[in-house]
């Protein structure tokens, strides 16, 4: 008896977003439908290769008949739904979330967040300079990647990518509870003493740059990291016969970072240690 169904063609559901009629395939989230309709909804903890975590609440929208705001990233579209993305209440909520996050976390390497802070007129400074911060040095305990928990918004994407959703290594988890909750490896040990296999699939999903390639971290420290001078080229990994797609980020003819397309049928954005970090040999040029 087959345990998995192979799926049937999906129906299109009709509902409205900001008063406009839209159609979305059954099973899509409100976020999917908004993006298809060209609406810009900010997201942080949402990952296109991960199940929704509902952690950051920055994507909330109003749904007619719902007492609370709903997270667009996880709420499935229903026929007849009336969704409003840009109401005063939704904007206010996003603004508060951005203020709270930006006052307690270093969002300097989070893509797009500066635009959102401007758009929602968030004022993270209003909590004063004493706002709770981790104030911790970046953890540099190996040559491949760096953990800078000052930048961590506790979205759990790295936990999910390392855990049962992709890598199944379970090196990363949440330690502590409540205000003391933080991301750590077992016993908060250095990575080199953990179960980590250095696939870097946590870096791939990290929304803030808390987890980064050591090459990127070093270049940022030296002030030489410049994404405007970087090209991205997708090719195929040379390390085994699986055929993982690699996107090589190249600056000044040096590979500085490797990612993988999230919609790729072979990788779904995941790589192993060799694919993600094993590029150095081509640029051992002298």
């Amino acid at each position: 008896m087959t345990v998995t169904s192979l799926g049937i063609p999906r129906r299109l559901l009709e509902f409205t977003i900001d008063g406009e009629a839209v159609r979305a395939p059954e099973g899509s989230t409100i976020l999917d439908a908004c993006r298809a309709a060209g609406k810009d909804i900010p997201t942080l903890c949402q990952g296109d290769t991960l199940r929704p975590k509902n952690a950051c609440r920055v994507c909330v929208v109003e749904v007619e008949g719902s007492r609370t705001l709903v997270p667009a990233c996880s709420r499935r579209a229903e026929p007849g739904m009336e969704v409003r993305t840009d109401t005063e209440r939704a904007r206010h909520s996003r603004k508060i979330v951005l203020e709270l996050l930006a006052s307690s976390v270093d969002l300097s390497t989070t893509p797009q967040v500066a635009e959102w802070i401007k758009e929602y007129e968030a004022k993270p400074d209003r909590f004063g300079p004493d706002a709770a911060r981790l104030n911790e040095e970046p953890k540099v305990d190996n040559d491949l990647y760096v953990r800078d928990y000052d930048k961590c918004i506790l979205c759990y994407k790295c936990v999910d990518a390392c855990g049962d959703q992709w890598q199944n290594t379970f090196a990363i988890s949440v330690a502590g509870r409540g205000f003391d909750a933080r991301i750590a490896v077992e016993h908060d040990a250095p990575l080199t003493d953990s179960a980590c296999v250095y696939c870097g699939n946590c870096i791939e999903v990290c929304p803030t740059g808390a987890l980064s390639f050591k090459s990127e971290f070093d270049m940022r420290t030296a002030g030489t990291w410049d994404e405007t001078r970087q090209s991205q080229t997708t090719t195929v990994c040379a390390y085994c016969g699986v055929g993982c797609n690699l996107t090589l980020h190249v600056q000044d003819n040096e590979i500085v970072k490797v990612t993988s397309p999230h919609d790729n049928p072979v990788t779904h954005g995941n790589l192993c240690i060799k694919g993600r970090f094993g590029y150095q040999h081509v640029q051992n040029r002298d």
Partner: protein
Amino acid sequence: MSKRDRTPKTYTRLTHPLVRDSRDEPFRQASWQEALDRAARGLERNRGAFGMFSCARATNEMNYVAQKFARVVMGTNNVDSCNRTCHAPSVAGLSAAFGSGGGTSSYEEIEHTDVIVMWGSNARFAHPIFFQHVLKGIRNGARMYAVDPRRTSTAEWAESWLGLNVGTDIPMAHAIGREIIHAGLANEAFIARATTGFEEYRALVEPWTLSLAEKVTGVPARAIRELAHAYARAERAQLCWTLGITEHHNGTDNVRALINLSLLTGQVGRYGAGLQPLRGQNNVQGGGDMGAIPNRLPGFQDILDPATRLKFETAWDTVIRPHYGLNLTEMFEAMEDGTLKAVYCIGENPAQSEADSEQAVRRLRQLDFLVVQDIFLTKTAELADVVLPATAGWAETDGTTTNSERRVQRVRRAVTPPGEAREDIDIICELAARLGHDWKYADAETVWNELRSVSPDHYGMTYERLAEHQGIQWPCPSTEALEPTYLHGRLWEKDPARRGAPAPFGIVRHDPPVDLTDERYPIRLTTGRRLDSYNTGVQSGGFASPLRRGEYVELSPEDAEHYGVVVGEKVQVSSRRGAVVAPVWVDPALRPGLAFMTMHFPDDVDTNRLTIEANCPIAGTAEFKASAIRIDKLPVATIVR
């Protein structure tokens, strides 16, 4: 136990052609002009005694041009690549059964199957992203069985681990087959319609009772029975294997024994049901597809077929020798007897990757002329007369490669190669021009379009479509449509005409490893890969992996105790062919009498000094997986290193 601080030898890129007048001189830098002239002269004077080592790691386009060079310019079918050292038995076995050498299913299907058998495959380490698809399957409810002498990290995810003795895969497969037949679980309709030779097969497996299999394989009869029933009862089952099956002196027979199980149960030719050999190199599938093997022309078309030859002779304006060329293994033997005198070696490192590496080096030294084209000065390049600096296929060239699920994908140039390094295709064309063949390829796409014109399986794959679909699986005969993700659906057709040639059962017999264990060499050594390293380590040595701990000889806790050795202690490991000194690692996943080593650090511990060059007579692959060794404690006085 802290990890050993051991940085492997790092290789720096070759930036200029190197030449020398005799092998005892050091290399000197030369201009491209001089190096190419020398290479052309060296090949010209050895016409008729030439062999080409093409590269399973370079693009399809490069492999196409390389085999064309061998066949058109040098007039020989002596072209092969390192697929010979790994998966040639899979290709030989699959094509003998189905007429096509590719894996029959796709990665996605394993997420939607019911039973997964991982046989001789530590995919968790060797093919980590494939294993993510397996894990999806397991999370979707599939049951996975691991058949492997070692309790690997793949086996940790299994419903059941069948830890068989090295080299007893055929008894295990036959016992499973017999149990399926006796339990009435054989798919009789499929057998009758789509296969031949069942009666012979039934007689072949009849002696392999579960209890006999238990004696020979060391696996409890109940576990074998459970796997047999799970595989046969599953609506869809996937059978995956890697080098644990192929790197034996009877690798092709092993592959046939596994294929038999799929024929017996009809677990092939349907979505989610199939056979999946996991390829070790990025383009080992493509190299064969492109004809860089001695018995096939591009598109995996048989050289012995006159119509095929005629097509290529017309397209290439040449005469193609109507017989198979020498494979890699035979070429090495031909070096020994002096009938092969010149080799053009592209991107391969046989001096370290061949079994019994000392013998391989000795044979390469006997050549009259050796030209090596690579990105590094490898151990093989150090033996050459001319060394040509090439570009790295995956990051510095445009083209395509073909993966384990037959998916042809675009490779793109992302960085500029160092110094005067040039693309493989350019270099080959320069040599061809000097030998009287003026080929003009504006770019990789021109080569690809030429290949498309002669290979029906690739005809529908334009570069544009490859980009649009993120790769396309062969066969793809039409530019309009895509074929199903699995092969051999024809076997299920009701109409015999559409069903085509039936798949024969392979009548293969158990033949234990050549290198027998005895009192002098009591331990069975098997080899494999680690997660963070790759083959001879020339590339993977280039990055600072926190997991890397150098080479060890891994022993079971029982054997370590028996020999009185501890972790980190250096011991002498000897086989009937050679000896190396390596530190000990104790791995509880090994059973008593079984040791494990890798080939990742040959500059440090040359494991292939130990391995045996006992070759599969059909595919030519050596028995890397089974050597007999002994462990000797080093007398204190001799610790010199």
